[in-house]
């Protein structure tokens, strides 16, 4: 449940630290959840790869609100986190510091999965 203007920690090594959600892709947008792609503006960044103030796409990877799966289980993380994506939807960084939940088993996220650890 990540609404507009929410801050997300970026958990890959693209250089960005904090990003703010400014819009949603693919839905009528009141809130986004794990696995949704959002439009973000990078607020804080370290390094040269990504600059603060640019707009990017990102996929939400962790959220504090208990995430309900159809098999009945609930998962919650300690923070709201995202991974920056390029315009085509592929992750920019090459290391992801996060435990991905089973939502990312789809072939769409194959590259993301290969970069990180997974939670079953």
């Amino acid at each position, binding site marked *: 449940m990540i609404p507009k203007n929410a801050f997300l920690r970026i958990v890959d090594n693209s250089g960005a630290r904090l990003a703010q959600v400014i819009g949603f892709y693919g839905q009528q947008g009141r809130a986004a959840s794990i696995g949704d792609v959002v439009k973000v503006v990078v607020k804080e960044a370290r390094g040269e790869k990504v600059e603060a103030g640019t707009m990017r796409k990102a996929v939400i990877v962790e959220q504090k609100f*208990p995430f309900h799966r159809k*098999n009945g*289980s609930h*998962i919650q*993380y300690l*923070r709201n986190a995202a991974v920056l994506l390029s315009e085509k939807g592929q992750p920019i960084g090459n290391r992801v510091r996060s435990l991905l939940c089973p939502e990312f088993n789809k072939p769409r996220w194959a590259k993301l999965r290969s970069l990180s650890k997974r*939670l079953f």
Partner: protein
Amino acid sequence: MRVEKCWFCSSSIYPGHGITFVRNDATVFRFCRSKCHRNFKMKRNPRKVRWTKAYRKLAGKELAEDATFEMEKQRNRPEKYNRELVGKTLKAIEKVSAIRQKRQDRFYEKRMQCAKKQQLQADKVELEKEVHLIKAPAALRAEKEKLKEPVRFATAVNGDAMEE
């Protein structure tokens, strides 16, 4: 599908129950119900909370080390599916559970044997200290006799009333 163990109380978590919490350092905690989840949030140590299995095993109240627990341990090598193996495993599970139950019962009995002696000692001490609270059997009988008389008198009176 796996039946997990609750991190706090060590009970089994069946599908559809409980919450899985992932910390920022990627450690996963599974809880069977909100009671365990809330205790965790309060930063309680399960080894000090009396109703958890962790406490009981540590305090020696329950069978902690036994060969029968080896069967449930998680092995990281996946086994290739083999129908006969599955059948044998199912039968083995039944037998092992029965053996484990017997061993746990024996452990409990052993633990309670000391309790019997302690109880006997406590009773003796109580008897010596508080003998004055106990009435002698003869005195009890005399009291009973006293209680009976008025009842007999009352029935005699009622009997006369009925006759009239």
